[in-house]
């Protein structure tokens, strides 16, 4: 029996769909951002305005810094947790799962107000407090991405093999598990990073200036500029994440070859 290849019909169908749902709206917005001064002609005027605006680089830098920290902290906290849950702590899974879904359910406004009431003053005086809340609101995605990934590998076998060869837990996680669940880790890291870099509500309620809160102020006098900002944020984040992905892939492959 010869199998019918569905390759091209599937690709054609999904591309068409993706084009209408994702590309067209992005194009719709981008078209406005390339309008010239006074809405006439085409130019990069709005983007030039953006990168020369006061506060563009400092706020962008703050956001990148916080997003990187949140991504790292998130993995440090969640990778060991999820490995343990899938290995030995099955009975805690529903509880952890629920805790991880909570940040999605609690309205961010309520969480931010609760945070202002509950957090100690020294923490509220540093912008790094945001890192913790970015990690919290990324939990639903991290949990799911890592869990799905872990369920597809023969975790027990991997761990037993590694441990019986004398590897420590840390080494087992870094050298054996992490490469095995790479797709989950990338997913978790990307979601945390993208979420942190675009987070607005908590940041603004806790009175910090990051890129998203800065843009709201900057956009006030320039509607076309405001649109340029959202297009810039979209495309910039995609380019940045792709670069990280390609770079880390190379690194992981190197590690694998060395090992």
């Amino acid at each position, binding site marked *: 029996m010869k199998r019918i290849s569905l390759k091209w019909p*599937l690709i054609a169908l999904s591309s068409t769909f993706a084009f209408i749902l994702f590309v067209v709206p*992005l194009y*719709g917005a981008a078209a*406005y951002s390339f309008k010239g001064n006074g809405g006439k002609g085409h130019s990069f005027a709005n983007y030039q305005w953006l990168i020369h605006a006061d506060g563009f680089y400092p706020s962008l830098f703050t956001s990148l810094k916080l997003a990187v920290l949140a991504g790292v902290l998130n993995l440090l906290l969640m990778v060991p947790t999820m490995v343990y849950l899938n290995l030995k702590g099955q009975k805690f899974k529903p509880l952890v799962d629920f805790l991880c879904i909570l940040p999605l359910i609690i*309205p961010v*406004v309520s*969480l931010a107000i609760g945070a202002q009431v509950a957090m100690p003053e020294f923490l509220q005086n540093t912008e790094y407090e945001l890192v913790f809340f970015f990690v919290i609101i990324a939990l639903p*995605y991290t949990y799911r991405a890592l869990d*799905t990934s872990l369920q597809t590998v023969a975790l027990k076998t991997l761990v037993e093999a590694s441990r019986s060869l004398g590897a420590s837990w840390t080494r087992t996680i870094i050298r054996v598990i992490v490469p095995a669940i790479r797709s989950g880790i990338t997913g978790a890291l990307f979601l945390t990073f993208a979420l942190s870099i675009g987070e607005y509500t908590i940041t603004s309620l806790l009175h910090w200036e990051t890129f998203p809160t800065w843009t709201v102020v900057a956009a006030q006098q320039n509607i076309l500029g405001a649109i340029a900002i959202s297009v810039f944020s979209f495309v910039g984040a995609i380019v940045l*994440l792709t670069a990280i992905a390609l770079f880390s892939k190379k690194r992981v492959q190197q590690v694998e070859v060395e090992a």
Partner: protein
Amino acid sequence: MLPLLPFFIFTGFFLIWPVIAVTLRSLHGNKNEWTFANYRPILKAGPYFHAFVVSLKLSIMTAVIGSILGAFFAYVIVKYARGKFGAVIDSISAVFANSGGVPLAFMFIAAFGTEGVVTVVLKKLGWDIYAGHFTIFSFTGVVLVYSFFQIPLMVLVFKPAIAGLRSEWEEASTNLGASQLTYWRRVAIPILTPSFIGAFFLLFAGGFSAYATARALTVGTVPLVPIIIGTLVDGNVVSDQANLGDALAVGMIVVATVAMAGYIWAQRQAAKWRSS
């Protein structure tokens, strides 16, 4: 248990503590007295109860659409988009899954609004999508816009499950004479089901609590619980019951807990099905 300690300490401090603060406030009246009064408007038929119904309808619909289409996309991507292109797709999915609010609403208005790119092109082709009842500023419009982040979210969280399907399994089942359909029915779908249910639940919860986009797209004409909470907590018009917003937030947590119970039950059933 010990290895879970960091997680419990972290969530306890940064998540549970604020939630307790909100719950306690919901049980207090305007004069700081203990009361259950904030919950009464939610429990009887009226605008608040109605908002819960609309929110549920929206989140279930967008989760169904998002999970099915997202799973389809994830499959196509895993199967045909490898290497660098795969990395680009991951990045795009992560960014789209986190989009929302005024920028997202604007993108769809620019495309499907009364003077949007798509609307204009279709009109030239002889189809005026605004001739009937459709507008982008309606429930249907909100469902459409939500797909923009629900589908990529599904792709991102479901892709690892599809990637975990080994090609050897398919080969083995083919060698044993099974058709593609049988392979899917007996092997792939049972393996994917728990992850699918988990991802569906995530989409449901996300759709239930998202509000910035709906708020930017409508003017309170699609009443959603989180929008009402935002209005109460953050509005420019003072509310008669200051802590009603907290009660609504607790109501959302309750709804989510019920959904969570259903989700755990479904996971168990799937696990049973898989092992039988």
